[in-house]
C-alpha cells in the first residue's frame, strides 16, 4: 500500500469520527507536524553519521567503527550525551536573546518542510506561493545567527554571526534569481506544479539547455554558502573564530543549532531535487524513494564539496557573489525568458 493511501485512510477515519471540520484539519496538521518532525530528526541523525563517514573515507580513514555496524549508533550516543550535558549560560550573556536564538534557528529550518513535496501527494500544504514561502521563511536563519552572535557576548561569536549574516544575505540574491528562472519556465510558484512540469527525464530543468545547468550550478553554489559549509564556512572558521556564532552554546541549545544546520543542508538538497531533478518522479520505485534518493545524492555532493575544497577569503567570498554569480544569474534569467518566449526547448 502506498503511503499516501494510508494517510488518506487515516484522514477519512478522522473526518468520519464526527469532529467538526476545523478540528479535523487542525488535528491532521498537528499529526503532519509530528510526522515531519520525526522524519527530520532521524534524517539529521543519519546525516551527522554520514558526514563523518564520507569525510573519513575521503581522508582515507574509517571514521566511527565501534558502535554498531560501521558505527551507525554513534550519533545516537552523541545525541544522548548532548542531552545530558549541563546547559551553560555566560554570566554577561543577553539571556532572552541567547535563549531564543537556537529556537528560531530550529523552527525556521523546520517550517520550510510545509511546502516540500516528499512524494506524489505527500505534502503538508501545496501553497500557491510554495517556493517563495520557503525562501522567505529560511531568512529567519540569518536573524537567529545574529541573535546568537549578539546574545553570547563573545567577540568570536559576534564576528561569526556577522560574517554569516553578510554571507547569507549576499548569496540569497543569486539563489533567488536562479530559482526565478525555473519559476518562469514552470509558470507557477507551487512546488507540486513545478514537479509536474518535469515528468520525463529530458524535461528536468537540469537538462533544459542552456539555462537549466547554469541555474543549477548557481543554485548549488549559493546553497552551499547559505548553509555555511566549506568552501564558504567563514562563519565558523575554526582556525580564526574557534567555532563561530555557537561558541558559547552547550547541551541542548547547541544540539538545536547542530540539528538545524543539518536540516538546512537537507532542505537545500530537497529544493534542488524539486526544482531541477524532477522531484519525486521516476519509474518503478515508489515516489518517496525517488525523492529521498535524489535528495541524498545532492547531500552527498554538498559533503563532497566540503571535504575537497579549501576555504575562501572573506573579500573573495563577497566578490564572487556580487561580481560573478549575480551578473551570471541575471543573464541566465533573461536567457530563460527568451527561451520561454520563443518556445525553444519548451517541451
Amino acid at each position, binding site marked *: 500500500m502506498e503511503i499516501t493511501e494510508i494517510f488518506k485512510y487515516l484522514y477519512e477515519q478522522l473526518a468520519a469520527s464526527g469532529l467538526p471540520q476545523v478540528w479535523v484539519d*487542525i488535528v491532521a496538521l498537528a499529526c503532519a507536524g509530528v510526522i515531519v518532525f520525526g522524519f527530520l530528526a532521524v534524517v539529521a541523525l543519519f546525516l551527522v553519521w554520514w558526514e563523518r563517514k564520507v569525510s573519513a573515507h575521503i581522508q582515507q580513514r574509517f571514521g566511527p567503527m565501534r558502535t554498531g555496524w560501521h558505527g551507525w549508533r554513534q550519533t545516537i550516543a552523541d545525541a544522548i550525551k548532548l542531552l545530558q550535558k549541563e546547559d551553560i549560560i555566560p554570566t554577561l550573556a*543577553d539571556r532572552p*536573546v541567547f535563549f531564543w536564538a537556537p529556537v528560531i534557528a530550529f523552527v525556521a529550518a523546520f517550517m520550510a518542510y510545509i511546502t516540500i513535496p516528499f512524494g506524489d501527494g505527500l505534502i503538508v500544504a501545496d501553497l500557491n506561493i510554495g517556493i517563495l514561502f520557503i525562501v*522567505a521563511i529560511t*531568512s529567519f536563519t540569518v*536573524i537567529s545567527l545574529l541573535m546568537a552572535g549578539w546574545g553570547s557576548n563573545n567577540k568570536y561569536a559576534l564576528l561569526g554571526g*556577522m560574517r554569516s549574516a553578510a554571507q547569507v544575505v549576499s548569496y540569497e540574491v543569486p539563489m533567488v534569481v536562479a530559482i526565478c528562472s525555473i519559476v518562469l519556465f514552470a509558470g507557477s510558484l507551487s512546488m507540486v506544479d513545478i514537479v509536474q512540469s518535469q515528468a520525463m527525464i529530458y524535461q528536468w530543468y537540469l537538462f533544459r539547455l542552456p539555462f537549466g545547468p547554469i541555474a543549477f550550478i548557481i543554485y548549488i553554489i549559493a546553497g552551499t554558502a547559505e548553509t555555511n559549509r566549506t568552501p564558504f564556512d567563514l562563519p565558523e572558521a575554526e582556525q580564526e573564530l574557534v567555532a563561530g556564532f555557537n561558541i558559547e552554546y552547550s547541551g541542548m541549545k547547541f544540539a538545536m543549532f547542530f540539528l538545524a544546520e543539518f536540516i538546512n543542508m537537507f532542505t537545500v538538497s530537497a529544493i534542488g531535487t524539486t526544482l531541477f531533478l524532477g522531484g519525486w518522479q521516476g519509474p518503478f520505485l515508489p515516489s518517496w524513494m525517488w525523492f529521498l534518493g535524489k535528495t541524498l545524492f545532492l547531500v552527498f555532493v554538498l559533503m563532497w564539496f566540503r571535504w575537497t575544497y579549501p576555504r575562501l577569503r572573506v573579500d573573495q567570498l563577497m566578490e564572487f557573489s556580487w561580481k560573478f554569480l549575480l551578473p551570471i544569474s541575471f543573464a541566465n534569467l533573461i536567457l530563460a525568458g527568451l527561451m520561454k518566449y520563443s518556445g525553444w526547448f519548451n517541451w
Partner: protein
Amino acid sequence: MILENLSQLISDISTQPLFYLFSFVIIASAMCVVSLKNIFHSALFLILTLFAVAGIYILLHAEFLAVVQVLIYVGAVSVLIIFAIMLTSRLASKKIEQSNEQVTLGLFICVLFLLASVGSLTYTAWNTVDLPMIEHNILTIGKLLMTRYVLPFEVVSVVLLAALIGAVVLAREEKA
C-alpha cells in the same frame, strides 16, 4: 496533501480572533520598539512587528504580499538594521533613553492624532463591495504590473537603480 486549502482553514477558525491576536502582537511589539532601552532588543521587536503584519496579510488572502513582506523586511531590511547596530560600537552596550523632557507634549499630540484618526475612520461612510476572492492572485498581480501599472512599475525600478548606483558610489574605495 494534508491541507487542501489554507485560506479555507483560516476562515473556518474564523478570522476575527486571529486578527485580534495579530493586532495585539503588532501593537505590543511596536510599543517595545520605541520604549526599550536596549536598541538591539528594539530591532528584534521590530522584526516581530513586521512579521505579525505579514500575518494580517494572510488573513486578507494576500499570501504573496505576506511572503514578500517577510522576505524583504525580515530577511533584508531588519538584517541591515541589526548590522548597523552591531557595527556601531558605541550603540552596542549603552542603555539608550528613548524619550526626552518633551515626553508629555509628545503624548498629548499622539492622543490627539489617535482621536482624530479613530473619529475619521468611524464617521466616514466607506463604500464596501463584496468581490469574489481572486483565485490566482500572483498571476493577477503579474498581469496588472505588466499592463495597467507598467509605468509606476518602471519608475520604481529606475528609483531603485539610482539608489543602487548611489550605494556603490558611496561604498567605493577612494583611489589615492
